């Protein structure tokens, strides 16, 4: 039963998505074709998918790092927003892409360090604090793009365009040319995180500390400090994701920054079973879903279709989270504990 449940959830979610498409008046076959076309149909489609995959992989790597250490950081969305905003500011002020990326990573780290510290020293559940900071980051974005960071003419709710010096180098692919340095950066980050967790004393001790804190402490490992640092590093990766997205694609900051990318990162990390070797594939699936639904919206061009892509993505995220929860062992009922 426990084995079959995740698949039932996936099938149910897919069925629900198809029924929603039917309700929109789209033939299912055409909808599926549009999805695949939009994700992998040609070089432009690939480029769109990989453009989403780069920040998603960075953020998902940060989530994976935190989760493997037993730190339930649900705040990738907010940390990504902090990073994007800081990158836009630093890139505009210095005109240097490297400074924009650095500022993004630092802002993401700072956004994660607060819940990390609260969790380690004051016992505040990080699930709650990071989730609440997501809301705060979103409001900060809305305020900044109509206030201090708004473009000089004060007509649009967005920042001034970044100077060309702050743009992330493009690697080319498709006419939009939007595969940028962020993708190799994300792959390197994933490799570094994977090796850190598996092949260094700190990584192994942090993972041990997730289930047996006394073991790590008895071995003389400064667990509390290391957990704060790992949490901040996860935030830095999410912040970097925001910075990469701003400097590599949009080159301005407006209210469309992130839009659930941080939540998709959590879902992608869970879908990969928190295994680094499956993360790139899982991220590619989520990126494809996102770029595919963009195409779907364009093909369909029905009234109200513009938010439909987000509905599909939300459905996919919810399905993954439910499936992962079902696969986990049920907590023992009180009074039904196994014998000692």
């Amino acid at each position: 039963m426990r084995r079959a449940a995740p698949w039932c959830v996936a099938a149910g979610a897919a069925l629900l998505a198809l029924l929603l498409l039917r309700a929109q008046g789209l033939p299912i076959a055409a909808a599926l074709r549009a999805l695949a076309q939009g994700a992998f149909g040609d070089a432009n489609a690939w480029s769109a998918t990989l453009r989403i995959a780069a920040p998603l992989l960075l953020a998902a790597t940060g989530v994976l790092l935190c989760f493997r250490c037993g730190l339930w950081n649900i705040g990738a969305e907010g940390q990504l927003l902090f990073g994007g905003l800081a990158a836009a500011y630093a890139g505009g002020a210095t005109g240097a892409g490297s400074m924009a990326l650095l500022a993004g990573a630092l802002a993401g780290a700072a956004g994660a360090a607060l819940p990390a510290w609260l969790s380690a020293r004051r016992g505040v559940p990080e699930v709650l604090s990071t989730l609440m900071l997501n809301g705060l980051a979103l409001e900060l974005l809305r305020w900044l793009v109509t206030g201090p960071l708004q473009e000089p003419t004060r007509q649009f709710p967005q920042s001034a365009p970044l100077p060309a010096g702050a743009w992330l180098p493009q690697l080319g692919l498709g006419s939009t040319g939007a595969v940028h340095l962020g993708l190799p950066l994300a792959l390197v980050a994933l490799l570094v995180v994977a090796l850190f967790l598996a092949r260094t004393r700190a990584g192994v001790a942090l993972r041990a500390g997730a289930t047996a804190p006394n073991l790590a402490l008895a071995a003389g490992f400064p667990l509390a400090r290391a957990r704060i640092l790992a949490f901040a590093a996860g935030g830095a990766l999410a912040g970097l994701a925001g910075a990469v997205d701003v400097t590599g694609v949009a080159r301005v900051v407006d209210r469309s920054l992130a839009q659930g990318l941080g939540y998709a990162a959590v879902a992608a990390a869970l879908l990969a079973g928190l295994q680094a070797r499956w993360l790139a594939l899982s991220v590619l699936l989520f990126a494809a879903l996102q770029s595919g639904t963009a195409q779907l919206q364009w093909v369909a061009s029905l009234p109200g279709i513009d938010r439909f892509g987000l509905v599909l993505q939300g459905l996919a995220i919810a399905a993954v989270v439910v499936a992962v929860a079902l696969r986990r062992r049920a907590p023992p009922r009180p009074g039904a504990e196994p014998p000692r």
Partner: protein
Amino acid sequence: MSVALAFVGVSRRFGARQAVDRVDLELHAGEIHALLGENGAGKTTLARMALGLVAPDAGRIEIAGRPTALRDPAAAAAHGIAMVHQHFALAEGLSVAENLLLADAPCCWSRRAFHARAEERLTRHGLALDPAAPVATLALGARQRLEIARALERATRVLLLDEPTAVLTPAESETLFAELDALRRRGLALALITHRLEDALRLADRITVLRDGRVAARARRGELDAAALTRAQFGAEGSAAIGGNALPAAAPGTPGPLRLVARGLAGATFGPLDLEVRAGERVVVTGVDGNGQGELLAVLHGLRPARAGTLAERSAARAFIPGERQRDGLALPLALAENLALGRGAPPGRFWSRRRLADHARARLERFDVRALSPWQTAAELSGGNQQKLVLARELAGAPELVLAENPTRGLDLAATAFVRAELCARAAAGAGVLVATTDLDEALALATRLFVIVRGRLAPVAATRAAVAARLAELAADRAAGGAR
């Protein structure tokens, strides 16, 4: 007095373990019956049978002389059986009255009437509590009184109490004893589940000692022999079978250099105490669980801070073998190689290649005879004995100068037990100071070159013979019982 509840030849097996084995036990109305025994002796399983949480595999339960099947907790409650658990289940944010009347039908609109109703119930049970007080403000003794009051709402026939004095101060224990005495006189059958002999001696009309799921001894008030009960509780046979006599004796001659000096050391549950461990010594602290030995070892290792006192001469090269090996000794989801890499003798270098980790692990797995398929399987997949060997492989590799171990052979089979003890002796022979805390008297006698008993966090030196330990424990228990009665 009449028999309120009787277990007749009940047995219960969990997997490979026979938790309860053909036990006969009668709880009489108007009596306190103490169930004495170590962890895993079967006390809790018996209680859970009476509560309808566990069904016996064999044998039967009789209530007032009639065989009765207790299918679920509701059935037990309907027969007037209830239990006060060691861990309270109170709603902290609510008042005493609200907690007490939580399960009742709503009775009244006015707060005053509500409190009066609670007050009336408490008075009927002979328990003094302020109905308006929030539970969060109550001391542990008062919380327990509230738990008893709640249980008494159902317990018209039998009240079971699980380690009721474990969390109480001596003064609170006295109040509890008086309350239990009053309940006894009202004709209730009380079962006191405990591993504290002194509580049993103070209160009980009958004592039944359980060991390994069987009745090891029975006694009635007036024929209580503390020494015999202690022997029954700890077990008297088996030391020869596990090679106790084969272990090397204390190294003769001059004692080695100091490995640990504690002066006036105190924690939440032990001390203040003085302790010295020298190279080559095997110092053993024995006593029933919950007398502070776990915290003592954690403080000695530096895992928890001391409340008072000083530690000196403590070797940096320490091995720490915790009592809860699955919780504190191993990271179960991690690979064996990763578990082994976390000790003092970690693989060299900052970056561990897969091969370096595997080689490091293989040497230790082989040296400590851990039966594993691969260094990359998880610690959770090993059997209990192999898990403990894995802990030893990590902690004892690389010549520690001080070894701290709690119940190092608990739950292990004879071969693994012999192996673990031999390793501890080998470390001492190689110049380490070894300090072991154990509840197993056989183990204490087999290992110790110097022996202490621990009761309520205090150490008392004792000669390393069974008679001496039994006499000392009985003496301490009797002291406490007498001291409490005054």
